């Protein structure tokens, strides 16, 4: 059991193995995203019932909540990749960390933007410096920090090390974001999406949200694999397997 896990884990150390396998994975994820996102947008925007207090403006939840959840998950993924990269020196982990940062930053921005748009009609303000909103803004700046570090340092190994340390140190922000609404008085309401509890809304509102979240995760995986594959080809361009690959592609 342990030895098979070890073998499975060490496979990830090979960029070639990752490159060959990830094509199929990315296609499946792309297909899931293509099915889930349009379904839930149409369902959520046209067929789900309006909220008893907020009316139709609550429908922005179908974009806001999945984007916010993903922005946080992506940072945790980057911290895990950073750990693997630092301890086991796996090249694929460095590549994944670098490729995930801009995607996570985009979703973090999307969550902040949709939150502001939603806040204006319901709360009466675009922005308020409460613990949830502020910690989410810090997350966006952390993403910018990781992207800046990666592009500021020429040497890929040093850049990966610096970014991994930044990710690991600042991942402490994620539990702060998550529990900010429970620990402090905030304007932001407590979590909508709880895996351990019964959802705080009826099924016909909650199902499109669930499908959208699955779709957004699949989309994230799809884009992450595309970006990682690109990055691997660029970094490994001097190796034999990439040259052979290019030769085969150019003949075909």
């Amino acid at each position, binding site marked *: 059991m342990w030895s098979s896990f070890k073998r499975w884990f060490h496979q990830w150390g090979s960029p070639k193995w990752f490159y060959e396998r990830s094509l199929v994975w990315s296609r499946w994820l792309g297909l899931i995203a293509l099915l889930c996102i349009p379904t839930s947008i149409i369902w959520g925007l046209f067929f789900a019932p*309006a909220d008893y207090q907020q009316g139709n403006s*609550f429908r922005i939840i179908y974009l806001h909540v999945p984007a916010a959840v993903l922005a946080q998950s992506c940072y945790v993924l980057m911290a895990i990749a950073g750990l693997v990269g630092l301890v086991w020196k796996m090249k694929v982990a460095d590549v994944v960390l670098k490729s995930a940062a801009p995607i996570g930053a985009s979703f973090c921005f999307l969550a902040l933007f949709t939150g502001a748009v939603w806040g204006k009609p319901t*709360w009466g303000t675009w922005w308020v410096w409460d613990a949830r909103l502020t910690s989410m803004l810090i997350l966006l700046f952390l993403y910018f920090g990781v992207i800046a570090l990666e592009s500021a340092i020429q040497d890929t190994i040093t850049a990966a090390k610096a970014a991994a340390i930044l990710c690991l140190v600042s991942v402490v922000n994620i539990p702060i974001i998550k529990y900010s609404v429970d620990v402090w*008085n905030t304007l932001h309401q407590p979590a909508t999406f709880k895996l351990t509890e019964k959802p705080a809304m009826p099924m016909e509102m909650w199902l499109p949200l669930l499908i959208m979240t699955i779709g957004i995760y699949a989309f994230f995986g799809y884009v992450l694999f595309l970006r990682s594959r690109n990055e691997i080809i660029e970094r490994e361009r001097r190796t034999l397997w990439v040259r052979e690959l290019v030769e085969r592609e150019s003949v075909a």
Partner: protein
Amino acid sequence: MNPKRKQRLLAVTFIVFGVGAAVGLALFALSQNINLFFNPTQVEAGEAPVDQRIRVGGMVVEGSVNRDPNSLAVTFDLTDYQGVVTVAYTGILPDLFREGQGIVTQGRLDAEGIFQADEVLAKHDENYMPPEIQRAVDKANRAETSY
């Protein structure tokens, strides 16, 4: 696991937990300052500073909203089910403002203990439901209380 990796893993774990503990302690020390607003109980107990810009949050007490018929001035009571604070405000209230709704107000506490608000923000909870269900819930509540 080879010793070099073990050493690196230990170092990384140490850094992560060290930073986590440091930030945790700092936030614990600052926890009062991070709160967005004071509760009515805290205001009644005199914990809120007088004549400084602060926020007070709570539920609007049912039947306490008094609108001035000639202007936009309005007064209402805020409660956290323990303390009560009277708020005076002049201006347009957000859509979600209603009796029984949670709100956050920004302004100054005057010498008589009335909160002079210059901004009112509505707070809503994480429960969403279609209007028909809300009507059904209200109906059930009314039926229960009429017994």
